């Protein structure tokens, strides 16, 4: 894992997973930057700590759950107020798989 180098195809694959459309110049730049950052991150890859339990959360007391009771939510008009392309009842999006 010590010599990670992201190829342009790998950068495009990750960008597709992240739904980021990238120009070719960005692909080239991000490839260089991510290679450099991941190179530093890899300093922890070699640590012999496989038996250490991972910390998933900062609060050792766990989640603070309230009773699961129905409460009023946002009014429809409010919820739609910031939408780029609302209808009277919902969010309009372009066709899926056009």
């Amino acid at each position: 894992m010590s010599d990670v180098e992201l190829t342009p195809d790998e950068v495009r694959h990750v960008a597709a997973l992240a739904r980021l459309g990238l120009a070719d110049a960005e692909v080239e730049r991000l490839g260089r930057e991510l290679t450099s950052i991941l190179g530093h991150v890899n300093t922890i890859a070699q640590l012999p700590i496989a038996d250490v339990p991972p910390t998933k959360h900062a609060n050792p007391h766990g989640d603070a759950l309230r009773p699961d009771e129905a409460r009023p939510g946002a009014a429809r008009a409010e919820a739609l107020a910031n939408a780029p392309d609302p209808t009277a009842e919902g969010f309009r999006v372009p066709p899926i798989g056009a």
Partner: protein
Amino acid sequence: MAIDVIGLTAERAAALLRGRECTAEELAQAYLDRIAAVDGEIHSYLHVDPERTLAAARAQDAGSGEGLAGVPIAYKDLLSTRGVPTTAGSRILEGFVPIEDADVVRWGDEAGLVSLGKTNLDEFAMGSSTEHSAYGPTRNPWDTARVPGGSSGGSAAVVAAGCAPWALGTDTGGSIRQPAAFCGLVGLMPTYGSVSRFGVVAFACSLEQVGPMTLTVRDAALLQQVIARDSGRDATCTGPREPIAVPEPGRLDGVTFGVPRAELEAGVEEGVRARFDESLAIAVSLGARLVDVELPYARHGLAAYYVIAPAEASANLSRFDGVRYGLRVDAPDVRAMYEATRDAGFGAEVKRRIMIGTYALSAGYHDAYYVQAQRVRTLIRRDFDAAFAGVDAILLPTAPTVAFPIGARLDDPLAMYANDIFTLPVNLAGIPALSVPNGLSEGLPTGLQIIGPAHAENLLLRLGAAFEAEHAFDPVPPALRSAS
């Protein structure tokens, strides 16, 4: 009366109001005048609405007038404000108007605080200089050729420039403490889970907290009293363990400080190190004992952080898809619309972090990067636990440098990230830390970071007040003093 707002603490502002020496409207107007005079150069606010501010102030003048009622405040533009634009420093949220207040903003309103506006930040709080704001950088009032730190650089600059008596920031890896240090202020990052994050635009949920940025330790305590609460709307919030007390300076007899000497060897500027060593001497002169502590995994905090925070960010920022709010770039199908919207709406640093996080969580790399980083997180927590078995608090410089010139680190992400080496491990451990002014190096402020075990805010504030009294630091930048 003419009100000189430069260097005016919130505590003193409240005393002026309670003593009827000025009205809330006069006070708000004095700050608005100050903002109009200097913020064109500093660029610390993203949104100011004088009519709204003055109306809120007049409402306080008509009310019962107790406690902090009528004292102005500024909010980092990562905090949702109902009916007031909230951008998170991003083009993708340009024009977004929240339908709810963040809990901390609502509690500010309930305490009678009067909002002066929303402050600049690195886009989605990702950065250490406020240069990653989509709306342009903020300048440091101590030297306008330098950054104010970040990501809460706008909140730091407004207070240092006399454009607000205090402000709220957020801290995910140092974003309250480092700008506080760079601008000569007090900054408190509370214990993880002690302040509700409801209504905070999410970056890395397991790391971030809201906290005060102030001129004095007492002001930090007063503002923490307002926000350290649980609302039942943040599932990670358990509230503070005890009420926050406003501290008095005093001696430090019986206090034991841990000093992680090995960590100090890693690239601390000479002037920063000299000021830090002077504070160690102050601690001893006040009766405290110093012992060496080891934090062997803290040096791996930077690498662990730059897996965990981007991983969480890549998930959190998936909600910006051009459907429910914010920017949309039209395209023939929905997937192309997502990709075009996110490419146009996010800046370079945000894209970097989304890419790192997506890569680290992707099939085949998840265990090697993300789980390994979480193991390091466990070891960093154990380091702190072991240290706190023998000491009351740990001392470190807040940042290894003073404020750096605008542009100096913008093209080198790793150099930018490295400025947070002393603050990141604290977020990974979920414990509180207070940065207090620690004197000047080359005419620029430095910060002393006091790190404590979970829920030790009252101890940190008491210790901070002791250092503050000994330093007698003047938080007003000299250029502002002579201009006023």
